[in-house]
């Protein structure tokens, strides 16, 4: 008794790779398949066979059993619409893992060269976990076949460290060939591949000492041979997620900023306590109020405000590097500095006035930067003048002298003298002096009253004003007596 073959009952698979597979629903012995119009015959010992892809249009097919009566020949008309397009099972070329970022990388070849024309392809990638192969996620990835073999790569980051439990991957595809009028189906799933690593049997908690962004979720797992009784994240007790064997995990959502020493994550068994520390913080803020100035035109001091605290200290603290973009030079803030001032010192470059600074801030969560362009001769904030002295010239004039460290030979200094007469009248005099190299300066102050108590002090800046230095200490001075205008009235 023949089985009537209707095209509906016997879907023909038009493989992605340009061949058609004819399958008979019931087990049959050897059969001879003949295509009328093509005068081609195919012999098969199985209940299916592959034949070259058919051109669009109707084709008459007859299946003759090699053994058995002629009466059981089956004939039917085959049209593309009766054919199911079932792509071949994809093959994962390479599966690798970056344990530090818990990321899986998958590579596969789409074998597009065997497909006649451009088509959209949907790849479905299934990630499974544990020996029980629980589905973690099912994702789709779209590409286009372009007539040649293309290797694709796709990555997936696990919420759980890859060392916690075995992760498996398999994939399948669906070719959305717009030219094909038949029925299109998904390929079979590829053979499963898994991420492997060499577990050691020391109890441990993963990830170790991870730095994460405040507000993120994190999964922490404990690889251990004995039963875990409890798990704690900081103060919170957490419910256990059971993995393979006695291994367990906990998931913490929306982690808040850690104290300076980080947040302890601890798993306790009857006889042991194992833990790790999670450091939740922020990336460095953009350095604010970046200011670069000099006290002596030899060394530039850049200061800044770090902005929002990152919540990270010690080895995860923010490190700062000051780049001078014209010269390419840079200076770093010492890591182990106990100095909490935010400042860096940059040695001036001879004959260079314009400096283009970029301050880069970096910590494990990110980086930021600020820039400032300065003409350093316009950013002089002199040291406090020293060795300030007052000397008489005569009863109405004195000389003021002081010392000012710094290489000011190429600029003019602007100094301001405060003259207070007998603790009452106060006068400010500005005077411009030619700058010198690490030098003392001398000026004359006249029109004073003879035999009168004065208090003098001085401060300096530059002609292109930026900041006054601090005032010197005050100097009390009594002017000399004037020469009597006439003799004693004897």
């Amino acid at each position, binding site marked *: 008794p023949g089985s009537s073959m209707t095209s509906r009952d016997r879907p023909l698979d038009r493989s992605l790779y340009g061949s058609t597979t004819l399958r008979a629903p019931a087990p049959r012995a050897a059969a001879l398949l003949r295509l009328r119009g093509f005068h081609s015959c195919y012999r098969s010992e199985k209940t299916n066979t592959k034949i070259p892809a058919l051109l669009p249009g109707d084709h008459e097919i007859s299946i003759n059993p090699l053994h058995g009566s002629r009466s059981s020949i089956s004939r039917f008309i085959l049209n593309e619409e009766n054919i199911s397009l079932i792509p071949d099972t994809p093959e994962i070329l390479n599966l690798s893992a970056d344990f530090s970022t818990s990321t899986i990388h998958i590579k596969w070849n789409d074998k597009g060269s065997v497909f006649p024309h451009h088509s959209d392809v949907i790849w479905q990638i299934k990630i499974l976990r544990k020996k029980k192969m629980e589905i973690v996620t099912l994702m789709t990835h779209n590409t286009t076949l372009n007539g040649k073999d293309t290797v694709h790569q796709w990555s997936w980051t696990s919420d759980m460290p890859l060392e916690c439990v075995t992760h498996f991957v398999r994939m399948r595809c669906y070719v959305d060939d717009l030219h094909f009028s038949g029925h299109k189906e998904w390929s079979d799933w590829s053979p499963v591949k898994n991420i492997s690593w060499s577990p050691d049997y020391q109890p441990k908690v993963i990830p*170790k000492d991870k730095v994460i962004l405040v507000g993120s979720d994190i999964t922490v797992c404990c690889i251990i041979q004995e039963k875990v009784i409890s798990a*704690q994240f*900081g103060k919170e007790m957490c419910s256990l997620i059971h993995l393979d064997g006695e291994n367990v995990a906990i998931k913490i959502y929306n982690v808040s900023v850690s104290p*300076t*020493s980080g947040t*302890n994550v601890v798993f306790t068994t009857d006889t042991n306590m*194992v*833990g790790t520390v999670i450091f939740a913080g922020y990336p460095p803020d953009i350095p604010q109020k970046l200011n670069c100035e000099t006290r002596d035109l030899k060394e530039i001091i850049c200061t800044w405000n770090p902005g929002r605290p990152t919540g990270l200290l010690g080895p995860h603290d923010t490190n700062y590097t000051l780049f001078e973009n014209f010269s390419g030079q840079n200076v770093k803030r010492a890591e*182990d500095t*106990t100095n909490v001032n935010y400042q860096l010192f940059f040695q001036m470059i001879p004959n260079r006035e314009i400096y283009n600074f970029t301050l880069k801030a970096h910590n494990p969560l990110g980086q930021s930067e600020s820039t400032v362009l300065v003409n350093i001769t316009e950013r002089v904030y002199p040291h406090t003048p020293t060795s300030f002295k007052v000397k008489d010239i005569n009863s109405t004039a004195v000389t003021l002298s002081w010392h000012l460290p710094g290489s000011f030979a190429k600029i003019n200094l602007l100094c301001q003298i405060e003259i207070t007469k007998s603790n009452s009248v106060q006068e400010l005099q500005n005077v411009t002096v030619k700058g010198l190299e690490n030098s003392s300066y001398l000026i004359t102050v006249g029109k004073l009253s003879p035999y009168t108590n004065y208090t003098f002090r001085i401060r300096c800046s530059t002609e292109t004003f930026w900041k006054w230095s601090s005032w010197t200490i005050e100097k009390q001075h009594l002017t000399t007596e004037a020469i009597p205008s006439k003799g004693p009235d004897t």
Partner: protein
Amino acid sequence: LLSTVAMGSCSGKYQVLLGQLQQQAKIMQNTDMLLDPYIRIQGLDKLNHKEYCKERPGAFPGKDALRGLSRWGFLQTLNATLGLVLHRLAAFQQKVCNLTKDKDQDWKTLCQAELYIRGIRNNIFCLTRLLNLNGSSEVFAPTWAGPRTLPWPTPSPGAFNRKIDGCKFLQGYHRFMHSVGQVLGEWEEGPSRTRR
């Protein structure tokens, strides 16, 4: 001479120095000087830390070992041990002291402990010099047989394990200072007479 350098002035009176050292040892054996703030800072107070924060055997000299030393050897050993404690504290505090000590009482206490220890070392220097000036026959007696550095293993891997290590270390330190106080309590009155 001891490797420590005097920071403050030295009292010339044996009785005063011994009394100060005894008082300092008494203060330093209290866990609220170092261990308790450390435990809170490290977040270990939220755990059943007592079970896992026990002194590591051999980390600090025991009372009998201290009692068996000459006064000179005892002072040498005390000074060397406190030097290691300072080193350990410095490594832990790094620059955090400057950043947080004004905002956090525990950090403040922890950062102050360093000054206390330096004060003890200063008194050790003064007492040693006093013993030396008195031509004490014990000056060149042997010190604690233990190695120059404490037999402290390399820090365990991982921040959490290092926290527990620190806890064990400070537990041992307070016990050591308790033993120091007891031995000092047994010292005779005068500087020149030998201890027993």
